[in-house]
């Protein structure tokens, strides 16, 4: 496997080929542009599947590592260092899966400046996948910040009425966090002499007192991205204004960059600080779960409701991660995937109705199930998945998270207990939404002529549904993939705990 034809390199950079091709197409050739984008992203997915076949299940370490010096920065070596392990491979797959589906969803929704849209979308994919696979802090940071830019444009150019405000806010908030991370990265480079994540983890030589501050600096970036309560204020704006595909990716993948960051960096590199701060983070996570759920319930705009539900769902992920045990972390990672699937699908679904009616006010709907039975059924399944119905994916994640959090020796079981109440609240707001949209009489004239979703739209949803059921009924393969890596992480943490912090 050489540098270029390396499966990871290909997975990251294949969309760029699409970008190049699109650059040479005329802006008026909308359909060819769409097709190129779709093909490029689908090919990326195919490549990532190939990549998965190279992945050795059971190996806790980094795999398919590629580590080539990129350039020298005074006495630092910045490397083109990629690799996947159980913690990241699934997220890569999620990204490559969601991107073509999102592109498919824009087929008729985006008519203006299709060329730019597709370019930004493919660039976004590059950035996101890059974040998940880079093992050099510098490289990571580049991808991390880079992923901001296309999203900024996507929200700002194709968004709703307040799109500029939302885009700017999105950009500035996320940047605000990441600049602190940049300082921490620099600190690591100066004092540890390396940017290699694997090396830093293996050395484990960061003093506990410093870990605390580094942890906070990294956490600032990730917590805003997640977003953890109370840093979530940018999220509803961004989601409400973003075009559907943007929301799907935003919720499906971009938010995961934050949670992934916590796992990859905060837990692995600063285990002592993680242990010390676990109760605080878990506390915020629980507040986020309950707060997000309560606030969702009061929303009138379906998309905003889903947006706030992300705060709640990501709260679960964070709680799981900071349970700091195998169940919690594996649950957390699985829940990242689940949230990407379920919330991604929810945004797709809300987008479909928006495309038809140009409103998302839930009061404008009601009784849609009658004329849109397929749409209703799919929405129901996704809703149920999102609220954690056993047998669907959401439950597996939430259950393992709560189980882990309850059994954690680092945080109090009360957190899990309170968080479990979030499951009740989730049912309340999600069923509320379903009821507002689909149940009740079909009494609005403008709704009576709506068409059920078409084959293209079904096609965008079906892959997500497959995974929703698969993870719900037989999540074992997913746990098997992440298991060894999580085991390694847990042992790092327990070693740190055993080494004795006061």
């Amino acid at each position: 496997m050489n540098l270029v034809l390396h499966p990871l390199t290909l997975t990251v950079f294949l969309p760029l080929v699409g970008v190049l091709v699109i650059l040479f197409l005329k802006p008026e050739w909308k359909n060819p542009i769409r097709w190129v984008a779709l093909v490029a992203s689908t090919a990326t997915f195919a490549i990532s599947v190939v990549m998965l076949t190279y992945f050795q299940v059971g190996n806790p370490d980094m795999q398919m590592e590629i580590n080539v010096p990129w350039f020298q920065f005074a006495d630092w070596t910045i490397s083109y260092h990629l690799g996947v392990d159980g913690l990241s491979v699934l997220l890569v797959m999620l990204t490559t899966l969601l991107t073509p589906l999102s592109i498919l969803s824009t087929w008729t929704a985006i008519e203006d400046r299709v060329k730019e849209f597709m370019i930004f979308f493919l660039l976004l994919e590059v950035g996101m996948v890059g974040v998940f696979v880079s093992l050099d802090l510098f490289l990571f940071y580049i991808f991390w910040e880079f992923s901001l830019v296309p999203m900024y444009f996507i929200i700002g150019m194709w968004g709703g009425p307040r799109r500029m405000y939302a885009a700017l806010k999105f950009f500035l908030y996320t940047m605000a966090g990441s600049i602190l991370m940049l300082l921490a990265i620099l600190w690591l480079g100066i004092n540890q002499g390396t940017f290699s994540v694997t090396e830093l983890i293996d050395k484990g030589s960061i003093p506990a007192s410093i870990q605390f501050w580094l942890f906070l600096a990294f956490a600032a970036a990730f917590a805003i991205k997640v977003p953890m309560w109370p840093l979530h204020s940018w999220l509803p704006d961004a989601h409400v204004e973003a075009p559907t595909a943007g929301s799907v990716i935003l919720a499906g993948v971009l938010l995961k960059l934050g949670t992934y960051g916590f796992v990859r960096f905060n837990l692995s590199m600063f285990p002592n600080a993680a242990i010390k701060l676990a109760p605080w983070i878990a506390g915020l996570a629980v507040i986020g779960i309950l707060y997000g759920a309560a606030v969702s319930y009061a929303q009138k705009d379906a998309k905003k409701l889903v947006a706030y539900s992300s705060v709640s769902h990501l709260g679960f992920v964070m709680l799981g991660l900071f349970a700091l045990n195998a169940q919690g972390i594996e649950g957390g990672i699985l829940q990242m995937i689940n949230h990407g699937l379920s919330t991604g699908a929810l945004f797709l679904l809300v987008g479909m109705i928006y495309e038809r009616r140009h409103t998302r006010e839930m009061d404008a709907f009601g009784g849609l199930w009658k004329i849109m039975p397929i749409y209703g059924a799919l929405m129901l399944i996704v809703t149920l998945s999102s609220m954690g119905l056993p047998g669907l994916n959401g439950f597996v994640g939430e259950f393992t998270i709560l189980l882990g959090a309850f059994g954690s020796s680092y945080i109090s079981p009360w957190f899990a207990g309170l968080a479990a109440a979030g499951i009740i609240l989730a049912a309340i707001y999600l069923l509320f939404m379903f009821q507002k949209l689909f149940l009740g009489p079909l009494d609005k004239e403008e709704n009576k002529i709506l068409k059920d979703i078409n084959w293209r739209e079904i096609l965008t949803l079906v892959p997500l549904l497959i995974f929703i059921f698969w993870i719900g009924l037989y999540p074992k393969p997913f746990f098997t993939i992440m298991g060894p890596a999580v085991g390694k992480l847990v042992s790092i943490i327990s070693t740190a705990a055993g080494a004795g912090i006061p």
Partner: protein
Amino acid sequence: MTVNDLLNNMNVILPLAVLIAWSCMLLIVDLTIPKGHKGWTAVMAAIGLLLSLGISIARFGTATTGFSGMVISDGFSYFLNMLFLFSGLAAIALAYDYLKRMGIERGEYYVLLLFSICGMMLMSLANDLIVVFLALELLSIPLYVLAGFARPRLESEEASLKYFLMGAFAGGFVVFGIALIFGATGTTNLTNIFASIRSDTTNLPLLTLGAGLILVGFGFKVAAVPFHMWTPDVYQGSPSAVTAFMSVGAKAGGFAALLRIFVSAFPALSTDLTMIIWTISALTMFLGNVVAIAQSNIKRLLAYSSIAHAGYILMALVPYGNTAVNKDTISAALFYLVAYALTSFGAWAVVIALEKAEGKGLELNDYAGLARKYPLLAASMAVFMLSFIGVPPTIGFMGKFYLFRTVIEGGYLGLALIGVFTSLISAYYYLRIIVIMYMREGEPEARTEFWVQFTAAAMAILVIVLTLAAQPLLNLASKALMLTF
């Protein structure tokens, strides 16, 4: 001094000597070029620059002193020479069409430009405060004239007058500062100053005061707060092509002097001066970025942006007395200067492309809808804005990364925090430009003149490519060492 000596000494400053000779020659040749064909002067000027650039590149890596220690040509000076010459080329490319469009095409423009570059190059070579002073004047005087080149447009004249008066005023402080330094050490040669500090025969308080006043003078040149106030007015009033050159060349010249003087002569004073530089740097970053928010004229906005960037570069100077990092201090500052130069020229190229006669087309609102009508121009501008913010993968990010590294390594985490915080503020107004270009509808009009477009595109490509393949530039910057003793 024999002829041989003279030749040897000339050899030390060969790129400069060539350029001075070429400039004088151009002055005469220009007389023969008929009005309306002054493009040829530009071409000639560019050839001169290229010639000098070629010599600089070939010479890079050598280090000698000459003219009784008056000048020193080392990696540092060659690196900066290349930067100045490159700026000159870019400035010519931008001026080529612009002057015609504005109706101010005259051959002297290029001659003065070349002389100003000579001044800058001399600045980077200087190893004696006399040479520094002369270089400062040689750099400035052509710029005073160029600023007023669009006369009788009042704005241009006003810019020129303000620049001139403030420059002279600040020059007074420099001179007095040099006097104090001379009084403290009995010499104006940087090497000797350094030596005299070591030998303890120095009146240190006096020296420190002198250094402080020098800081004022060059702080003025690089547009650091509170010596920055001329910048927005002058940048706005001057012809845009001049502004572009000024924002890069003059600033780089100022930094060349600051770095040279402080690193090679005053490391011992760092305990007293660091805090001042720290404060100036912090104030500059803050004020530049904050006031830029309130700007609606693109030239003024870029002026404040340039003030802010001076603050960033000054950050590199803060830990200059720390021997462990002062190597990085220079490299980081130089690297950032390059990053700034590329980005800045690119941005000014776009500004020039949109500028219409009589100062129209310079309001931010004139950029609305640019992305739809001129996608490439808008895309380049977006790249420059992102580079100014410091978003990867642009060279602005690399520059900041290197800078912050130096600052943190030097132990000034607080300053680094201010740095990142203010760059967050800056994102606000840079993004606003993107917002206007991409997310607003409008009917902008841009000139599609080749060289302007070419500059914009080339800079955009360089901004990205030099990030992804940063090694050569990094190597260059890290080899741009001063010959120290």
